[in-house]
């Protein structure tokens, strides 16, 4: 009040005028900023919807010709113009599942090692090494898989599995087959190695966010390192850990080049994990350039749409699981 009185009237008017102008330009800047970021957000949605619709549109000939049987038949006959997506869908899900069964525990181990167990001087080099793994192009993994890993599989691992797991009653059929070295198990293992860096670096980052006092309290109560990890670190970071796992799963579902090298690219549905199969991404990559009829091309685009749906459903399930977990937490 006193300052206002001290100012001459003209200065006050100028001041008010300035403030008004300032407010006006602020509002405009604010609006522009809001439109800009809204546009950026909408762009993602539009791109997503555009991609989904154009794939659906491209695949409509396949969907209308084969109907629901496109999802349930195993034919993939470019000569007879009969296409069914069951083999690639099955292969995509099975290889991703194998990858996750291996990658999640290993990543958990890596992250715990780096945050709880490893001596401090070792943590940074190992963490950088893992991030470097994430930067290797997938075709390199494919070539490594084919030229280095496949011979190991066919000479050592598969005969071992045949001998010891093959005769088992229920699991047995999964591990029977000639030692080709190329197949769904090999593809799953190569995928696991490819997604481990993603999952483990997310896990490591979030494990580091656990407050030291929580861990120290647990140690003070006499917990072992394992008990601290399982009962304190993991519950504290659960949603972020699951997020990291699904980041890896998304990558495993859509991976193309590496899988093409070691999966065998055969449109056969077999119970055995040692036999060649096919995945959605690998089928598209292999066959799109030479798809010589309209229905063939349309079927491949329809496969792309299915991959989109499969990924979407898997991620939606993940979100639901997460929500349920959080709700249970609140109830406790």
């Amino acid at each position: 009040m006193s300052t206002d009185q001290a100012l001459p009237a003209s200065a006050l008017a100028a001041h008010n005028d300035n403030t008004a102008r300032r407010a006006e330009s602020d509002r405009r800047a604010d609006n522009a900023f809001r439109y800009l970021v809204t546009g950026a957000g909408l762009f993602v949605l539009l791109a997503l919807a555009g991609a989904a619709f154009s794939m659906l549109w491209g695949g409509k000939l396949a969907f209308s010709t084969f109907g629901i049987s496109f999802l349930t038949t195993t034919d993939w006959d470019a000569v007879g113009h009969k296409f069914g997506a069951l083999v690639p869908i099955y292969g995509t899900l099975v290889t991703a599942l194998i990858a996750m069964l291996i990658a999640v525990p290993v990543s958990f181990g890596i992250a715990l090692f780096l945050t709880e167990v490893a001596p401090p001087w070792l943590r940074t080099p190992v963490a950088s090494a893992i991030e470097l793994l994430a930067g290797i192009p997938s075709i390199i993994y494919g070539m490594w898989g084919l030229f280095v890993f496949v011979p190991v599989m066919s000479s050592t691992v598969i005969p071992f599995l045949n001998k010891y797991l093959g005769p088992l009653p229920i699991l047995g059929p999964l591990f029977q087959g000639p030692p080709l070295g190329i197949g769904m198990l090999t593809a799953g293992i190569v995928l696991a190695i490819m997604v481990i860096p993603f999952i483990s670096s997310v896990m490591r980052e979030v494990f580091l966010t656990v407050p030291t006092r929580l861990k120290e309290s647990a140690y003070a109560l006499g917990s072992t390192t394992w008990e601290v990890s399982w009962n304190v670190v993991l519950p504290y970071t659960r949603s972020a850990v699951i997020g990291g796992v699904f980041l890896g799963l998304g990558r495993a579902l859509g991976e193309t080049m590496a899988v093409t090298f070691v999966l065998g690219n055969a449109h056969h549905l077999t119970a055995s994990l040692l036999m060649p199969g096919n995945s959605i991404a690998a089928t598209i990559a292999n066959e799109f350039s030479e798809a010589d009829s309209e229905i063939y091309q349309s079927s491949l685009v329809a496969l792309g749409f299915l991959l989109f749906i499969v990924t979407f459903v898997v991620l939606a399930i993940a979100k639901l699981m997460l929500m349920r977990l959080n709700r249970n937490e609140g109830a406790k």
Partner: protein
Amino acid sequence: MLRSLTTRLALAGIVSAAAFTVQAADITGAGATFVYPVMSKWSADYSQATGNKINYQSIGSGGGIAQIKAGTVDFGSSDKPLESKELAEAGLGQFPSVIGGVVPVVNIQGVAPGKIQFTGPLLADIFLGKVTKWNDPQIVAVNAGITLPDALITVVHRSDGSGTTFNWVNYLSKVSPEWKQKIGEGTSVQWPVGVGGKGNEGVAAYVKQIPGSIGYVELAYSLQNKMTYGAVQNAAGKFVQPSRESFQAAAASADWKNAKDFYLIITNAPGETSWPIAATNFILMYKQPKDAARSKNALAFFKWALENGKAQAEALDFVPLPDELVKQIEAYWAAEIKA
């Protein structure tokens, strides 16, 4: 609305791709990967001799046919000839460019290249999954000189659509009624057994990796990778080795004179020394091109390549066309292509 959106997106893609290629070269072509080595050698030498540049994109035969029909390139190339009806509908002309061959390759311990022999029906039975062991009586019957192991056969085929596959299954269809009826022919087919490798190099890699496997690749790939190729019995009943000479014999024995628009697949060719699975690459061009000057340039390139590019083709294990056929092609250009 959606339709116009997708069409526009597709157009934008094609236009930008075309703009890019037009900028980079005087003549553009796209198609079969099979001829890429010889095309790039020819265009390098042609560019040195005349200053005209050729930009050939090896995107596959199916892609080559699609691109020439869309009018985005000056010539397309395909390992599978188009029938006269389809050519007429699109206003296209067609002529052969170079000949190669597909050979069976195997991975059996102790068998040297060229020592194992197959008959056509035997190959079909192996690829149908009916003959499953290397010591099967049918294989032993035609391979008296060598000992074959009691091992499973793993069939390796192409996972991508391919002109190589087309010629291979076209041959199997000609020699095996069962193959023709159950599987048929095309650039990709529904394989009853086996694993699929991407490209010639993918099949070559799988065959080398898997003991007891059999696959099929271009001759050049089997020679470069020092693979064990097999001899095949031809239509005259003789077992022949794959080589430039036996491919040449197949090309010469083929009845090009009576083939309208050169529609001729020279598998199972007659003649004592002919290789039974020889493959021809075909060039597709508009008969009445929108831009006559560009087509004229393209024809000048092919005239140069067919007449002066023989040594380059042979160095890459391809077979140049016989002189008689080249004359026939040049007459076809004069009569059919208004450039």
